């Protein structure tokens, strides 16, 4: 029953947000797109010239790009597997009755609130350092050779760090979903003689599938852009062993000042993220209707 007057007011209240986001989206995006077709280096100002698809050709045929693509996929995939399996198990655990539920939940959620640079540096120095890290101390105590995690398995080490940060998020969402599970359904299945495993497979997992999809999509959006953790631990190295797409574009544009090439990389990153985004938007859109 909105009147004409309140409609106009509503539009006036909405427009600042719409205009700001429109500007935020269109201006930098079109600039990135434009730069990606230029030969443009910050060290040679005034020498910009049209380059056609050269930047894309160089970027896509550079071996660094394929390393970065592979690392990006391994990083996203690895963290997703760890957080979803771990999050489901943790969710099931925290859904039980036990003493100090509230405190344990708070402990489990805590890593999510630690800023990326802190968690990366704490893991790098105080745990993974081959001389002074806790893992090295344990290895020595057991008579083993300490392992230099970030030099010998850089990508895996970063996966561990990032997974630690995101495990709470997956746990929290899956726990929320578990709590909305109808317990009568489970009890009925139990009465009918269904084993715990088949109850889990046929009742719990289907119920969780929606939440799992949401976790996958949202985490993917954030994980495609992992940056700080790489910057403070390995700087993308050794070689390109832990360079992801985000980090490669950063190196190309802000360290090598190659604006054209970096922009082409940026466009590739946008396309990649959009593929994921389309699926996420569809899921959320469906929910909005119900």
């Amino acid at each position, binding site marked *: 029953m909105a009147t004409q007057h309140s409609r106009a007011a509503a539009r006036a209240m909405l427009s600042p947000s719409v205009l700001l*986001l429109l500007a935020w989206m269109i201006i930098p995006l079109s*600039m990135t797109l434009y730069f990606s077709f230029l030969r443009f280096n910050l060290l040679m100002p005034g020498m910009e010239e049209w380059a056609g698809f050269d930047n894309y050709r160089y970027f896509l045929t550079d071996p660094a790009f394929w390393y970065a693509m592979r690392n990006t996929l391994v990083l996203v995939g690895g963290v997703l597997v760890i957080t979803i399996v771990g999050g489901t198990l943790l969710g099931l655990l925290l859904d039980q009755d036990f003493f100090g539920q509230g405190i344990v939940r708070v402990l489990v959620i*805590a890593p999510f*609130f630690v800023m990326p640079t802190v968690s990366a540096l704490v893991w790098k*120095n105080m745990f993974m350092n081959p001389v002074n890290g806790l893992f090295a101390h344990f290895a020595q105590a057991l008579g083993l050779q300490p392992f230099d995690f970030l030099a010998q398995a850089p990508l895996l080490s970063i996966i561990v760090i990032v997974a630690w940060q995101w495990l709470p998020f997956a746990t929290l969402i899956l726990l929320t979903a578990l709590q909305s599970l109808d317990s009568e359904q489970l009890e009925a299945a139990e009465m009918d003689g269904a084993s715990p495993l088949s109850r889990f497979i046929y009742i719990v997992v289907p119920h969780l599938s929606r939440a799992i999809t949401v976790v996958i999509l949202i985490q993917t959006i954030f994980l495609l852009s992992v940056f700080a953790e790489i910057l403070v631990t390995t700087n993308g190295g050794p070689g390109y062993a832990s360079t992801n797409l*985000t980090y490669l574009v950063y190196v190309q544009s802000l360290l090598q000042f190659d604006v054209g090439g970096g922009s082409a990389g940026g466009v590739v990153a*946008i396309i990649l993220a959009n593929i994921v*985004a389309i699926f996420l938007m569809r899921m959320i859109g469906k929910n909005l209707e119900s």
Partner: protein
Amino acid sequence: MARKVTSRRMAIVTVVAWAVGFAIFFPILWTIITSFKTEAEAIASPPKFLNFHWTLENYITVNERSNYFRHFMNSVVISVGSTLLALLIAVPAAWSMAFVPSKRTKDILMWMLSTKMLPPVGVLIPIYLMFRNLGLLDTRTGLVIVLTLINLPIVIWMLYTYFKEIPVDILEAARMDGASLKSEIIYVLTPMAVPGIASTLLLNVILAWNEAFWTLNLTAAKAAPLTAFIASYSSPEGLFYAKLSAASTMAIAPILIMGWFSQKQLVRGLTFGAVK
């Protein structure tokens, strides 16, 4: 009989859950403990857990040597400033979409969300160049602007889902009684909207405090918030574990406490209402 089994089961679950919770929390706990050690004790082998001489010297050194307070204040100004600015822009927008929905409301909401899907690296160069030309590099103002814009979609969405839960009947009753739009907002809507706005504020401050792409790329020494200050420990000189721990503990403590208060809103805010 049945009760006995349950209580034994509960004891086992309790032990397992506490062990797992402790393990996940351990890196944070270890950082806090190390922050009270001397540098020598911080790297002692075998590691010392509680049997060391507790000291506050690292906190004092970090504060004296590195102008810690300024970086802390930068974090506060940037995260709180960008959150308040985003709320100022988002509250009217969310209000109008929740209470005066039109045919296009859903499309607008979805489109707003899609701007959040833009990978930051895709617009890094234009933003960097614009900031350089406008003199906004390494300023708090610049970061407040960027963080306001990147978090605006989340803020609008969270507010929208909260406002949606306010019963429209009450608003209509107020309108029947002849309340103007202004008094409708001030006397009817605001009191009911405050809890939702408060939790949106809390979550957004957390997100802005921990944001580590733009803060790292757009600041140097002057406007660097704690994320960027801590990153300077990636190439340190000499022994630094205890100092790193002290700086880290101070950087995460306020947010850890806020985060624990906002854990219920977290799910809702970060899933855009897809999981409640």
